[in-house]
């Protein structure tokens, strides 16, 4: 690969001048293949795109702590490829339009080699679209919408959380045999909710259950009383809820007040740790999915928790949760991939990540995990958990019920839905 001493900024300036000077020049689609000098003493800059305000501010903070811990571990060992890793964080405000602007800024002004972080799928899409334009590798750490590794997959984007379909796969068959076949769905009336409910519906049909009704919950709902009355009137055996964000927090509170969590079985798609940490245990009802728990009985977990507590002694959240874990794991695997590739060249890093395999012990999960090269989603163990009633330890909120291997909970539709740009169509760079 030819190496010219061109920085990204001077490159962009040149492009700017050319187009300014000659408006009649035909500027084809943005498909320059750029190579930058990678002076070995120059730090590797990583842009952190987690939300610091808006609906997912709290999860965003946890996500970011995960990334930072992984990065500081590499820096303590002398950096990556002998280069120090530096970060810059800009708030994406849980707003896609802001995500676009932040990504433009991080890539063009701060010359970030990689971007990491997302909770909201809208923000993740906005960032990944800009990242794809420049070829910048982007890690979607915590957005669990099935569209992320399906319809909206990208060559430069890698998804590290389990998605709605995975969690439904893990829960539905067990719930039908344990609780009954008469099901009701409560679905947030937007894309994530509909995708998740569609996955649940398919599985319920497949295993002989029946869906008696589906209640659509508009985004921004704060009062669930009318809907919960309707649930009672229909008296299902199982309610499968795909309600997220602040809506979920309000719903949880109201369901627990009614004690409905005990009178019928509830399946909550996924429960992010930062959303429940510190709340009364009553608020956790039914069965829900997660990718990791801090009291998993596996080697390394306890040390990991200790490292967290050492790194963040002042944080209110005393133990790491799934959001932190995903942020940490994604970042660690990216930096390891850069080391294996021996370069920050994006194509080499993408190829490394596409063939990524991580052993169960490295993942601190029950099964080996691997990157699906067709969808760029990490295939990993999914746990089902419930409230740990009767515990004396306020941090020990979950009781893990079961774990499913990646093959059992595979999102089979994603492969067909995902049409990724080819590697050749992705601009290349090396920072």
């Amino acid at each position, binding site marked *: 690969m030819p190496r010219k001493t061109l920085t990204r*900024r001077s490159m*962009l*300036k040149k*492009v*700017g*001048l050319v*187009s*300014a000077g000659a*408006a*009649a*020049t*035909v*500027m*084809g*689609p*943005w498909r320059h293949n750029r190579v930058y000098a990678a002076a070995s003493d120059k730090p590797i800059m990583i842009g952190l795109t987690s939300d*610091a*305000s808006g609906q997912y501010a709290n999860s965003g903070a946890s996500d970011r702590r995960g990334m930072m811990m992984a990065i500081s571990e590499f820096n303590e060992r002398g950096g990556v490829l002998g280069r120090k890793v530096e970060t*810059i964080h*800009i*708030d994406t405000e849980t*707003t*896609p*339009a802001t995500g*676009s*602007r932040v990504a*433009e*800024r991080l890539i*063009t*002004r701060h010359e970030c080699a990689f971007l990491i972080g997302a909770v*909201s*799928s*809208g923000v993740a*899409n*906005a960032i990944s*679209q800009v990242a794809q*334009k420049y070829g910048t590798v982007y890690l979607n750490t915590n957005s669990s*919408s099935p*569209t992320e590794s399906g*319809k*909206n997959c990208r060559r430069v984007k890698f998804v590290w959380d389990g998605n709605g379909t995975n969690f439904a796969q893990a829960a539905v068959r067990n719930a039908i045999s344990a609780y009954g076949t008469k099901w009701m769905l409560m679905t947030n*009336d*937007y*894309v*994530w909710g*509909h995708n998740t409910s569609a996955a649940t519906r398919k599985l319920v049909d497949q295993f002989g259950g029946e869906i008696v009704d589906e209640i659509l919950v*508009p*985004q921004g709902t704060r009062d669930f009383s009318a809907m919960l009355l309707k649930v009672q009137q229909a008296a299902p055996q199982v309610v499968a809820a795909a309600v997220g964000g602040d809506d979920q927090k309000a719903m949880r509170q109201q369901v627990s007040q009614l004690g409905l969590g005990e009178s019928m079985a509830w399946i909550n798609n996924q429960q992010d740790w930062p959303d429940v940490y510190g709340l009364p245990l009553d608020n956790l009802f039914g069965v829900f999915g997660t990718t990791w728990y801090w009291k998993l009985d596996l080697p390394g977990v306890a040390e990991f928790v200790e490292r967290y507590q050492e790194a963040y002694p002042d944080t209110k959240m005393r133990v790491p949760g799934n959001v932190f874990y995903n942020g940490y794991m994604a970042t660690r695997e990216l930096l390891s991939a850069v080391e294996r590739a021996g370069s920050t060249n994006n194509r080499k890093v993408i190829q490394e990540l596409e063939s990524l395999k991580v052993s169960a012990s490295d993942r601190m999960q029950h099964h080996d995990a691997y990157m699906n090269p067709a969808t760029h989603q990490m295939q990993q163990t999914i746990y089902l958990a419930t409230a740990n009633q009767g515990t004396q330890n306020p941090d020990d909120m979950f009781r893990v019920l079961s774990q499913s291997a990646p093959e059992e909970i595979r999102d089979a539709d994603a492969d067909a839905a995902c049409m990724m740009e080819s590697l050749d169509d992705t601009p290349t760079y090396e920072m």
Partner: protein
Amino acid sequence: MASGESVAARWVSRQMVLLLVVLATLPLWIESIGLYPYLGVEIAIWMIYGLGFNLLLGYSGLPSFGHGAFFGIGAYAFGLFQLRVFESLFLGIACAVTAAFVAGAIVACFLSHRRGIYFALMTIAFGQVFWFISIKWHTLTGGEDGLLNIPRPAFELGVASAGLGSNTALFYFVLVVLAVVLVALWRLVHSPFGKVLQAIRQNEVRARFVGYNVWLFKWTVFAISAAIAGLAGSLFSMAQQSAYPDVMSLHASGIIVMMTLIGGGFVSFWGPVIGVAVYFLARDVLGAVTETWLLWFGLIFVLAVLFKPEGIAGAWQQHVGSGDRRSLARRAVAGFLSAGRK
């Protein structure tokens, strides 16, 4: 310095030339002050949006808190045209402007016989309805994931043609649009039509007694303002290459009100231009320094309302008007800012 009246009579004012020159050279110096070309694209787009919005708020005294809806409609219309019909820059923009105009015209039928707080809340209600539709109709709009992969069609005019793939190229295209909007709005507010709008702002009842069809004027200005928002929206969807429901949210609609007022939309034609520049720069500069930038911005905002309620433009006018030692430069700036109003 020419008097306000004769400046108003011109097609192109000195202020416009100054603004456009500053913006035209922006790609040459924006990186040396630590910013990036893409920011210039967004600033220019929001200036268009703000100028159109101030036609309602500043000139007609009609507070619209749901204007993001029309911005969003423009963005979706442009994107859908490119993705579903065919790729064309000018037809796409025309489609966006028309869609926003039609939506604005329909909404205005409900609004134009309402005033003050009732007008304001009806705009919120309609804004929410459009926002709801954009989330709900996700087979068309992509829901919260947004409408993605919107192309930036090439600029083609006769034999000349230019790609808008790079942010700098797009910036110059937006700048040309901004120039056209500036001239058009400048003429509009200084036309007899603009005078009637200001009369309505000062006293709607009197304007009606004088014999103007106030309803029709309000209807027209609302639809025009919506169309300009749609134009800005179409450019925004090009800049972002996607369209999202969030630009239609109450929050986003509130921000354009804030930008217009903080710049001094009530007292100057240039209020929204200044407000947009200040807001974007503050957000980018403060936002990189501190995560609690909104707190600081809010505090500055409160202080500004308390001590300089006419906004930045108003503050300048006062500052210059009060002092004896009037330097040429200061007078020039004051003239710049007051040129929009008598």
